[in-house]
């Protein structure tokens, strides 16, 4: 798969080395990201009162079945929303990729539209949609598919639906970026060699767009498991996810070390997923090259 003969922009030698250019950002991140992160991790090894080093916070987290349930529920939510975003997002991105320039303008607007309102406003919109007399229930009852309104608000399903809509644009944009990097001549070549549309898609387009799929999944998963507003309003107090637990412990109950430990557990969960997906990404990148 050669991309070498594509015209590449000529690079001028930069007056500064790239390392030096990154210094301001590095300083900024150290000050406002790395140091707070170290403080957070250090706090998670402290006992609830007084100083010292202890693993008690982590022990407390993993010995309480309620906390484990919160962790698994959060993981499931992340997984479900990521898969749903992928299933709904890929066709949109593919359609965008194939569309004419005029359609692309319209589609860009439509894809970005949800990002233009805040998550809080969209969440309250979802309360209206998911309610007993909301859009979904009125529609299903009106069509005669159900007799009684089904409960969507304050359910895990409702949270997953709202989160899918909220993070969908990020998945679509990642996949579009990846699709637009595919050399269109590859598909033409495949067709001229007798590959049908489906075969071309499965063997050329889909594998080459994997980097975009992976980065989209990463974004959606990480943002979903760390969302606070939507799960707390749609899920209510009866569905607890990790960010709600962190808020509850850190701000309401003032148990900072435990909140720090819960944050660290959430961080580790995200890091594991990032690691798995980026390993997968490395492999696919080899394929793309």
């Amino acid at each position, binding site marked *: 798969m050669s991309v070498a003969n594509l015209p590449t922009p000529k690079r001028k030698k930069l007056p500064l080395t790239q390392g030096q250019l990154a210094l*301001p950002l590095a300083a900024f991140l150290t000050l406002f990201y790395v140091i707070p992160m170290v403080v957070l991790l250090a706090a998670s090894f402290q006992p609830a009162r007084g100083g010292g080093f202890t693993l008690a916070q982590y022990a407390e987290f993993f010995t309480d079945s*309620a906390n484990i*349930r919160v962790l698994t529920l959060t993981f499931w939510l992340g997984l479900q929303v990521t898969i749903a975003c992928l299933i709904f997002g890929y066709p949109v991105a593919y359609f965008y990729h194939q569309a004419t320039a005029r359609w692309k303008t319209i589609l860009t607007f439509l894809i970005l539209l949800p990002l233009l309102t805040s998550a809080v406003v969209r969440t*309250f919109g979802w*309360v*209206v949609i998911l*309610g*007993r*007399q*909301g859009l979904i229930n009125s529609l299903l009852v009106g069509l005669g598919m159900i007799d009684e309104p089904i*409960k969507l*608000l*304050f*359910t*895990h399903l409702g949270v997953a639906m709202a989160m899918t809509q909220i993070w969908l644009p990020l998945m679509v944009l990642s996949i579009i970026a990846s699709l637009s990097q595919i050399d269109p001549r590859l598909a033409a070549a495949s067709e001229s060699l007798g590959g049908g549309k489906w075969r071309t898609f499965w063997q050329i387009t889909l594998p080459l767009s994997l980097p975009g799929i992976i980065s989209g999944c990463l974004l959606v998963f990480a943002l979903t498991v760390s969302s606070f507003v939507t799960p*707390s*309003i749609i899920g*209510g*107090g*009866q*569905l*607890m996810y990790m960010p709600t637990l962190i808020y*509850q412990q*850190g*701000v*309401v*109950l*003032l*148990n900072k070390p435990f909140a720090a430990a819960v944050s660290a557990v959430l961080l580790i969960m995200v890091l594991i997923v990032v690691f798995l997906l980026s390993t997968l990404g490395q492999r696919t990148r080899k394929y793309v090259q």
Partner: protein
Amino acid sequence: MSYPNLSSRHLQHISRRSILGAGLFAGSSLLIKACTGSSPSESAAGGGELIATTFAGSWEQLYRDVLVPAFTEASGGSASLVPMVSLEQIAKLQASPQSPPFDVVLLDEGPFNAAPKELFQKVPVDQLSNYDAVLPALKSDEGWGPTTGVQVIGIAYNPETVASPPTSWNDLLDPQYKGRVSMQGMQTTQGTSVMVQFAKMNGGSEADIEPAFALLQEQLKPNLTGIAANSGALATLFQQGEIDLAPHDLNNVISLQEKGLSVDWVAPQEGGIALRPAQQIVANTETSIELAAAFIDAALSLEVQSAMADAPYYFLPANQNVELSGILAEKLGSNTEEALSKLVLLDWSEINPRRTEWIERFDKEVQA
């Protein structure tokens, strides 16, 4: 043809320096802002500035439209407002006690009672010209700031779906409202108050919540469609016809009613619950105590307190000289003293030591 060339070279020349300059300027001004933003500004010309917290919603509106103008007129000072719930305010104060981010805070009695007292300083009541007008029951014995205004929790209901208005807290447990009730969780003052009230009605007390938890499992939970995250979520649930009954604040319900929502409010026969948020002066503030006292004094003035008792705020005033009228008079009586006699006051000093445990237990027991 040379003109565009020249201009583009000129542009390039400019952009490198000016972008660097602009970047440095923007960066440094952000830094300066970040540094000064957290500490109160030193007194400027005139009466000085202070940073006051308030609760989002009606309280913020009252502060912005009535209290701050009254304060500026009386003292010449200016105030900037930060809307934030009590617990978050205390968390912020604890994070930086030496240079606190606020000067005057508005706190619910529960969270204030539970907070370490070294975060605050006593209010110099001799500097408050309106202190004598405050109802004695709303003053602090220990010299802290008096109650600013009373919020009353009763039962909000939808008159279109609830045939006869509820009369008792027990109506929330009536099986006919299965899946039609909501409430806020125990991490909110409202949720804790309602649970303690249920305990008290069933042989418990501020120190013994057990009866309320028994009730929660057996009778309340089947009726609950969900636990609302905050009062805004409760409003949306009423609006969507999702719920028929919920414990809620009188002032919030009236403001929903005035927006055309089908919702009304009653004080249950066992008594509505009175909440007494109060303003306190933060310890180690850079602003002067006199200015902070002037702000609290303005909040207790007849002018501000009369406005507070009227549309669109509807808090019970702390100033006993204010005559109640309209909806407040109809629901609670002709003045705050009469209203308080019909309301329940909870002992937060008994509740607070146990509250952490209750919140965690409540969250576990209501899990779907």
